[in-house]
């Protein structure tokens, strides 16, 4: 890079530091508590130097990063790990090691850890589903949690209303899980289709707010229609799946659910991969890149959008049933707008349109806050910041989408690429 004008840089950093001292002064330095109408102000002067030094330094970093971004834009980022893993010499042992790790996990670690891992797996499924809508279709969906709720409540309410009948008929309730899985997926799919039918004509931003609206309406319905949905207290004592007609202990059931989730994740990855290079998958990506061009090339946008919403919703249905089976308890609070946003974070941070990205995104979003409890209160702060920085400096996410490469035999020249 060119010469650095230190005088100018120092001046800019100093100005930034001063500006942020001013900006954060009331909120960071003063703290107000009002007890019985009496205000007490705590002065936290120590925050002034902290802010000053932090922003003095950050200002340098920021400018440096922006400059670097402008220089290296469009150039492929070096992806050493990806290149290494592309060779079978390295990829095969890596896959075997991963498989062993995943299979041994519930036996090697505690039930708590297993449950954390189940959460990760559930988020992978959610992420893969939302990725179809946001990553491939480019449609900002802010109400995805509603479909997740659809899945969870399908199972929960199925148990509430049919559980006694099953007992009466002498059928074990552990079977209900296996009925709920396909039923919930289909219900979510149909739900996704019906909900999107009327709003599909709306332009991008309108679509975002309408999906948000729809998600909130669903949650309020769950909360307020207690006669149907059991209201804010939710559904409890949902049965875990039984193994071969035997009721199993919670510890064992956790392992069992873990493996079911793992299998579902593997199936989901395979299916999403299949979709990715298929007629409909390409149509989604074309629609995302340029909707007018896509339409002019013969793609029916209405159909493509409907398909992406419906197929996306399907995965939320699976994930919902898994959640209910894992926690045995669900209530509307689990399906707020924040839930939708967290799933969105999984997709965006991992890498929109990228399957490995979704996996890494889920691991980070779920594991980091679990294992860094001391950071718990900073969790959302960091997520928020990460979203912004990711958009500015690495739009493709942690593991950006890789395009499929093809080789062709050319007479006389051998293979092209």
């Amino acid at each position, binding site marked *: 890079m060119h010469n650095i004008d230190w005088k100018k840089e120092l001046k800019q950093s100093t100005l930034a530091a001063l500006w942020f001292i*001013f*900006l*954060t002064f*009331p*909120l*960071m330095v*003063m*703290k*107000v*508590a*009002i007890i019985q*109408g*009496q*205000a*007490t*102000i705590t002065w936290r002067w120590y925050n002034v130097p902290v802010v000053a030094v932090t922003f003095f330094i950050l200002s340098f970093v*920021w400018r440096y990063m*922006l400059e670097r*971004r402008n220089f290296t834009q469009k150039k492929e980022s070096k992806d050493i790990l990806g290149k290494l893993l592309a060779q079978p010499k390295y990829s095969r042992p890596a896959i075997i090691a991963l498989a062993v790790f995943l299979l041994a996990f519930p036996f090697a670690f505690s039930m708590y850890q297993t449950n954390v891992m189940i959460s990760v797996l559930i988020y992978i499924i959610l992420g893969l589903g939302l990725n179809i809508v*946001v990553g491939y279709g*480019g449609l*900002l969906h802010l109400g995805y949690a509603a479909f997740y709720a659809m899945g969870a409540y399908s199972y929960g309410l199925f148990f509430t209303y049919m559980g006694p009948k099953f007992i009466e008929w002498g059928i074990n309730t552990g079977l209900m899980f296996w009925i709920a899985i396909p039923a919930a997926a289909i219900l979510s799919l149909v739900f996704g289709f019906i909900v999107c039918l*009327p*709003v599909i*004509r*709306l*332009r*991008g*931003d*309108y679509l*975002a*707010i*309408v999906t*948000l*609206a*729809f998600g*909130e*309406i669903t949650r*309020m*319905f769950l*909360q*307020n229609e207690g006669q149907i949905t059991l209201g804010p207290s939710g559904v409890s004592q949902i049965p875990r799946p039984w193994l071969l007609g035997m009721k199993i202990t919670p510890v064992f059931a956790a392992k069992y659910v873990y493996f079911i989730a793992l299998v579902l994740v593997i199936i989901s990855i395979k299916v999403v991969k299949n979709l990715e290079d298929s007629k409909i998958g390409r149509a989604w990506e074309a629609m995302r890149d340029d909707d*007018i061009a896509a339409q002019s090339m013969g793609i029916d946008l209405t159909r493509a959008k409907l398909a992406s919403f419906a197929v996306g919703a399907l995965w939320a249905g699976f994930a919902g049933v898994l959640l209910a089976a894992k926690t045995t308890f669900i209530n509307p609070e689990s399906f707020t707008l924040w839930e939708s*946003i967290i799933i*969105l974070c999984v997709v*965006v941070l991992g890498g929109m349109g990228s399957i490995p990205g979704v996996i890494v995104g889920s691991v980070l979003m779920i594991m980091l806050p679990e294992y860094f409890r001391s950071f718990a*209160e*900073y969790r*959302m*702060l960091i*997520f*928020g*910041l*990460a*979203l*912004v920085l*990711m*958009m*500015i400096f690495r*739009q493709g996410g942690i593991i950006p989408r890789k395009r499929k490469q093809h080789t062709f035999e050319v007479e006389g020249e051998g293979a092209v690429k």
Partner: protein
Amino acid sequence: MEYFIQLFMSGTVKGSIYALIALGYAMVYGIIQLINFAHGEIYMIGAFTALIIGATMASAGVPTGLVLVVALISAMVWAAAYGVTLEKIAYKPLRNSPRLSALISAIGMSIFLQNYVLLAQTSNFVPYPNWVPQFAFLEDIKGILNSNQFFILLTTAVVMVLFTLMIRYTKMGKAMRATAQDKAMAQLVGINVNQVISVTFVLGSVTAALGGVLICSYMGQINYYIGFIAGIKAFVAAVLGGIGSIPGAVLGSFVLGWTESLGAGYLSSDYEDAFAFVILIIILLVRPSGLLGKKEIKKV
């Protein structure tokens, strides 16, 4: 009938607050086609700043009238400062990126600012003192319109008038309209687009902060989360009216305020928040570009 008038008035007051916030959404959208998701947080930060500065002054024995003035001014100053900084950090570097990227950045900023206030202050509700003067002439109709409500209506009316005059007649107003129509063209004829964008954020933040202080004085409490809900509602209002259209945002706000009040009063108060979303969906189904939004044909 009295019940209806009561509901109508409270709807009007709500609508006024939504309008003060929705202006910011509409303006920013008009100029950079971005849903400024973090706008609600600016409103909350304005109100919080007013609380901190105001409470400090009040406990030092400053008379209430002065406290109100200084609190309002500091709310506006800091809200504007946050608004401009927000734009410089989170949106400006993304001006040439896909719309989705800027929108996600905005969502990130919203999450960040909420949690920043949560950590810097508190996660609990804090009582909000009422510095608004109590008008004697409203004593008789207190049930329908109290002093706080009156003050909100008055402020909104004044802001709207000033705003309209500014957009119509000042040089900056004209520059803003030009930029909204065609950014590249505006730049060509010598308009400083960066400056216009900054001013847009300043104006939007200032009106939102005013709304924040007024509604918190009225409701008597505040926490870090109020901006999010109010922001979403105001945003719904802006979309209802036709996003990007300033008169549309104001109209949408009142429609929303009335729907909520009357719906909660006559139908079901459990669903007060849901009415906003239901009416949004209904209106967009009938008029996909909102009440006053122009059906623009995208240039290809």
